[in-house]
């Protein structure tokens, strides 16, 4: 299962820090929420449900954005396929 790397840190300003590479990123409020959900180990389905409840967006449109976002996290080496204990 693809997950957010365990040691990724995110602050309440949307500053994301990967301590293993030293890379840092900025995300907006929605991105911050999604990363927090991923950190909590929520599944894509659960995240879709939570976001579509809170924002005025239909699940199909959100999934497209979510896929893009996950692709970006993968590209920035923030995801891992290993199941981390």
């Amino acid at each position, binding site marked *: 299962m693809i997950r957010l790397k365990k*040691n990724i*840190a995110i602050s309440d300003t949307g500053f994301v*820090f990967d*301590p*293993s*590479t*030293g890379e840092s990123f900025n995300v907006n409020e929605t991105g911050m929420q999604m990363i927090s959900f991923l950190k909590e180990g929520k599944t894509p389905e659960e995240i879709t449900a939570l976001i579509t409840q809170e924002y005025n967006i239909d699940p199909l449109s959100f999934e497209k954005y979510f896929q893009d976002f996950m692709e970006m996290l993968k590209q920035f080496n923030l995801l891992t396929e290993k199941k981390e204990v």
Partner: protein
Amino acid sequence: MNKKKLILAATGLNNTDNPGPGIPVIRSIKESGKYDLRVIGLAYETLEPGIYMHDLVDKVYQVPYPSEGSSALMERIAYIREREKIDVLIPNFDAELFSFMKAEKKLEELGIRTFLPTLQQLEERHKSNLDAFGRKYGVNVPKSKSLTSLAEIPKLRNEFDYPIMVKGKFYDAYVAYNEEQVQMHFNKISAKWGLPVIIQEFVRGTEVNVIALGDGKGNTIGAVPMRKQYITDKGKAWGGITLENPDMLALTDKIIRGTKWRGGMELELIRTPENKLYVIEINPRIPAWVYLAVGAGQNLPVALVELALGNAVKPFESYEVGKIFVRYSWDMIIDLKDFEAISMKGEI
């Protein structure tokens, strides 16, 4: 409680855009507050900025270039020793290490302690011996070859895919995309650093570094991994951040354990997109970014001084991840008499 008196001598006062580690090493030891410290700077050139940093360096003596040989250096050190009872000497340049290592016994006779790698350690980690080093200690290294003449350049295409790295035996590294560029870099590097010129396979990835200190018995006293965040056109770190990277620390331990490394070292590594680590260089001394390690909780220069004094040092167990250093430049105003003193008398 009275602080322990320590007279420290250090080279590498060239705090320029290609900085020597001398000033950050001195700063680390001074700021520890552990010693009643007197600092003797050893300088090669009259405009090394550290010469004029009187808050960090108490007295400076000019010393002969390493190319003048060990005996000229020792003659000068003996002169200095008559005036300053140096306890510990920390050489900070690759190019001078051989002379100081050869003179280790003589230095000891003068009561001057060092904590340097052995000649074997210095030799086998040499860029031109990196292939054998990788095989011996089971670490990934780029394929490399030593060149001693321009005539060997055309044959490189049978052994390497371009681009390749062209490196000096002590310093300087350039990427070359074709034979003409190899020739150009070969001429430039050999004129500055002599032969051989080293050719290395170009490994794609991110450069990461580790500063470490080995006790000479196979133990790592401290190690801090870093990624350069801002790199100058000379390839020097102008900003960097400490990393949490167990793989880099495990590799450092493996090298220190295998070689029984004695003294400071800097590992220059490439992390490939597949997260494989390649050792591209092992610098046999403390790097200029040492103060980042100190800021992150490991005062490696103080540990090195203690090891040099023959004291037991407990290994550091942690450091702060995400600590950043940012270098800056600063204009000092120097009186002509100071410049005159170092230029004419060779001391200030």
